């Protein structure tokens, strides 16, 4: 692995579903000689793309797990992570962005900035990741890269600057004009591997000159040398422009826009050049960790090979040789035989086999130096763990993890499946923090929770394929919650003083709605409840939050203020006060007008204009609120908010209503109160469930 970090790039490829991320990655691997034959995502040869290594990915033509791969371009190391486009797998995107230094934001030249592009953009903002944009599919009918660049400005607020213009569009796409070198680039050979630079065609010369002027004008603010050259009318060199674009991009103040067609092998190589020229090397990015030995002060990490090692495990996979842990080293380096410490639990581990991944294939390496991404075998850890050299106690700042919104009961069909299912669940929950599992105490059923129907469907399928665990699934269930809507007082005495050792405790106070999940405020004065019983009271109240008294859904948004109480010198105990708090909670809760909240999803439908009305109708039938509908070319984009409980099976219904021409994305938006009529039916269903049990 290269130790000159100026020649290393850790990049991701992110975009909306079907924008061609995986196809682009496949071309990059081909041009960098990592693969010698191109397979399409859903190609006729049935091989599927190299990066979609899971059978399921190849079958469905979607990327589920981020695949990490490595390639070399012009003697530079590029580590690439190809991320899923589907929102249900958004944690994969979060995870990748956490460890990447730059991103190629792939946009479809026909559909432009789509809903998932917006989500990815928010994630990039969260982790301050610079990006360059690639307008893909310029060969498709209706392609308009200029419109996409404008949408980048209007919809995402990017300062998008065109670095190329197309030579022809749609089926006449021939190549691109590079506005820096002012050359026309054509891509010849069976796979576009021969780049032919020619003079710009006469009919494009004026346009190219105007666009170059616009580009230089836009990027001049990031370089004094360039500004001076413009003002003094000196020669503007390529190096000046490149330097200015690089500065602007790394500062996240501009987004250079490139274009082409990965599928038609057009203009992928210039994009690779752009990755090296404009996206940051590990030394250009500042990364921070928390020092637990110094009260959580933040420490800036440097890509120094001699400093103590700090590395982040960002993804786990179950390989044929045991657990494969993907790791990004931020400082120091990992060598075979090194001893490192998992800062979460303080356990010492010895570094065994180190590898560099190339989708499903792997290459053994001796070390992973700072600034690189690699993987190690045989280390038991969880995703998000930080590994450090002995002597320091740093941890990297945690990733943003969303709460699951949907659950499903699964029942193994036989004993063997039961054992395999446990193994699979153990693995999946370690791999994916948004996938959770628990056993329902009442029904004894195993419940899996996740971010959407597809998310859970994929895991059930993986259980069958990878672990031979045959399971039957129940109906998907929505993660409802309970909360209170008004302030209510409680005054409860727990008293059991008949025979044996007694129990006595009185709690009095009030509960009210709040923004936090749960807050406990102690305002007891004068020792009415001795201080040593206060934690027991808090525990008692907190214990009630797991299962609400109304419908046994988890309770959120409650602040309990304990004002007064009483104790008995002999009969009071922790247990007695816990029981008193539980009684107090139940008493107050009924008076505080509890309501049920349900997850509301942001649903974005993209449909041909002629089906706009029927799609809006579908939303209305589902208690949805249409926020707006916007025409974009031949398509309409309908944005709405719909309760998750109404969205089960929506993809089939949408397909049949639009002759399969519309698609939709769905992601969690917020929790909102369930209307009374729906609340009643939920209560009814819950009662029937109880009767069955």
């Amino acid at each position: 692995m290269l130790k000159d970090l100026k020649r290393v790039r850790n990049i991701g490829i992110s975009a909306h579903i079907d924008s061609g991320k995986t196809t682009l990655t496949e071309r990059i691997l081909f041009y960098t000689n990592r693969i010698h034959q191109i397979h399409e995502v859903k190609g006729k040869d049935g091989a599927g793309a190299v990066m979609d290594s899971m059978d399921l990915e190849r079958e469905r033509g979607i990327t589920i797990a981020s695949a990490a791969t490595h390639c070399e371009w012009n003697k530079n190391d590029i580590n690439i992570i190809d991320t899923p486009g589907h929102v249900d797998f958004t944690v994969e995107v979060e995870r990748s962005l956490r460890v990447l230094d730059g991103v190629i934001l792939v946009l479809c030249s026909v559909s432009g900035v789509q809903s998932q592009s917006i989500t990815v953009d928010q994630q990039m903002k969260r982790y301050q990741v610079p990006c360059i944009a690639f307008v893909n599919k310029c060969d498709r009918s209706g392609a308009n890269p200029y419109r996409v660049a404008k949408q980048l400005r209007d919809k995402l607020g990017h300062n998008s600057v065109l670095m190329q213009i197309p030579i022809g569009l749609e089926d006449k796409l021939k190549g691109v004009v590079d506005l820096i070198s002012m050359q026309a680039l054509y891509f010849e050979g069976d796979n576009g591997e021969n780049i032919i630079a020619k003079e710009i065609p006469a009919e494009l010369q004026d346009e190219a000159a105007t666009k170059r002027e616009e580009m230089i004008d836009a990027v001049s603010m990031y370089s004094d040398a360039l500004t001076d050259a413009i003002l003094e009318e000196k020669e503007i060199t390529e190096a000046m422009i490149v330097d200015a674009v690089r500065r602007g991009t790394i500062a996240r103040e501009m987004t250079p826009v490139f274009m082409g067609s990965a599928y038609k092998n057009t203009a992928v190589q210039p994009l690779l050049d752009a990755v090296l020229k404009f996206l940051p090397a590990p030394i250009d990015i500042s990364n921070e960790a928390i020092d637990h030995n110094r009260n959580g002060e933040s420490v800036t990490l440097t890509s120094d090979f001699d400093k103590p090692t700090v590395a982040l495990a960002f993804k786990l996979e179950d390989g044929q040789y045991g657990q494969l842990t993907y790791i990004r080293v931020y400082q120091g380096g990992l060598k075979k035989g090194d001893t490192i410490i998992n800062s979460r639990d303080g356990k010492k581990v010895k570094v065994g086999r180190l590898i560099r991944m190339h989708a499903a294939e792997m290459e053994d390496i001796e070390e992973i130096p700072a600034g690189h991404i690699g993987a190690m075998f045989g280390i038991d850890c969880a995703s998000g763990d930080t590994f450090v050299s002995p002597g320091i106690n740093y941890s990297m700042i945690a990733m943003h993890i969303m709460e699951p919104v949907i659950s499903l009961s699964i029942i193994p069909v036989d004993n063997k499946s039961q054992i395999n299912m446990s193994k699979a669940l153990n693995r999946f929950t370690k791999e994916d923090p948004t996938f959770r599992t628990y056993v329902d105490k009442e029904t004894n059923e195993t419940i899996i929770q996740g971010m959407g129907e597809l998310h859970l469907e994929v895991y059930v399928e993986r259980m069958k394929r990878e672990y031979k665990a045959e399971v039957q699934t129940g109906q998907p269930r929505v993660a409802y919650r309970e909360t209170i809507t008004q302030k209510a007082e409680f005054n409860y005495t727990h008293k059991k003083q008949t025979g044996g050792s007694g129990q006595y405790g009185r709690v009095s106070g009030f509960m009210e709605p709040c923004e936090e999940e749960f807050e406990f405020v102690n305002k007891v004065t004068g020792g009415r409840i001795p201080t040593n019983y206060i934690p027991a009271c808090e525990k008692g109240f907190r214990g009630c939050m797991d299962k609400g008294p109304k419908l046994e859904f988890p309770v959120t948004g409650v602040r309990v203020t304990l004002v007064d109480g009483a104790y008995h010198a002999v009969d009071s105990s922790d247990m007695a006060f816990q029981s008193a708090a539980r009684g107090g909670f139940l008493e107050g809760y009924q008076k505080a007008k509890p309501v049920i909240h349900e997850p509301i999803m942001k649903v974005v439908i993209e449909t041909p204009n002629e089906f706009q009305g029927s799609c809006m109708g579908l939303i209305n039938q589902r208690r949805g609120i249409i926020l707006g509908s916007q025409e974009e070319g031949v398509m309409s984009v309908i944005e709405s908010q719909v309760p998750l409980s109404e969205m089960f099976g929506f993809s089939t219904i949408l397909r049949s209503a639009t002759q399969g021409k519309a698609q939709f994305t769905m992601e969690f938006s917020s929790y909102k109160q369930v209307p009374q009529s729906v609340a009643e039916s939920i209560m009814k269903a819950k009662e029937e469930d109880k009767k069955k049990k």
Partner: protein
Amino acid sequence: MLRKDLIQKSPVVQILGSEYLGQGKFGAVVSRAGVGKTQFLVQIAISLLLEGKKIIHISLYDPIDKINVRYKEGYTNLIDSIGYIDPQKAARLWDDIAPCKFGITCHENTFSPKNIRDYLVSLKKNSLEMPAMIVVDGLDFDRDCSVVLDRLSELGSEFSLAIWFSMKSHREQPFTDKGFPVQLDRVQGRFDKAVYLQPKEDKIEVVILKDGIKVNERHLIEPATMMLA
């Protein structure tokens, strides 16, 4: 209470009264570019939203985000006009009324009343609350709009809707003998109500061109807030 106060303060209620257009009838806000047609239409729509009704806002040039900003601004101006209000109360009311507005953005050449009809039919089929009004902002009345107006008129009658349009006039074109801007004159028979906005010193003058006995009434409004001066 807040709803009632805001309705009373609404400039459009004060100018046009609270009785709205009859079913299937048209209304127009006419002015030259940049005077405040859209913002006035937004105030008309907000007064209906405050009455608990639903509206559809179709814009032929503004993106959805901009439509939303216009409504938020219009609501804030109205709130500010009645002095101090508990911000939480104001925010809650906005949360209540904002989802009752549904914005559609489309291009003029692809604007199709058929899509709107499909949507309304689906609402009716599912016994959901129907909108009371449609705002059509940006239709070019310099061209022949009779086909679109016919379709919209049918829609209005079928679903008991009032439809308000913005209508752009031109500085250099004088009013016709009937006292209407040229664009309105061509189609005035279809319209039940029409107001004309024109700058007057540092205010905007609202002249009622069509509305029964109110014709020729004049009111001054603030250009920044569209509230009565």
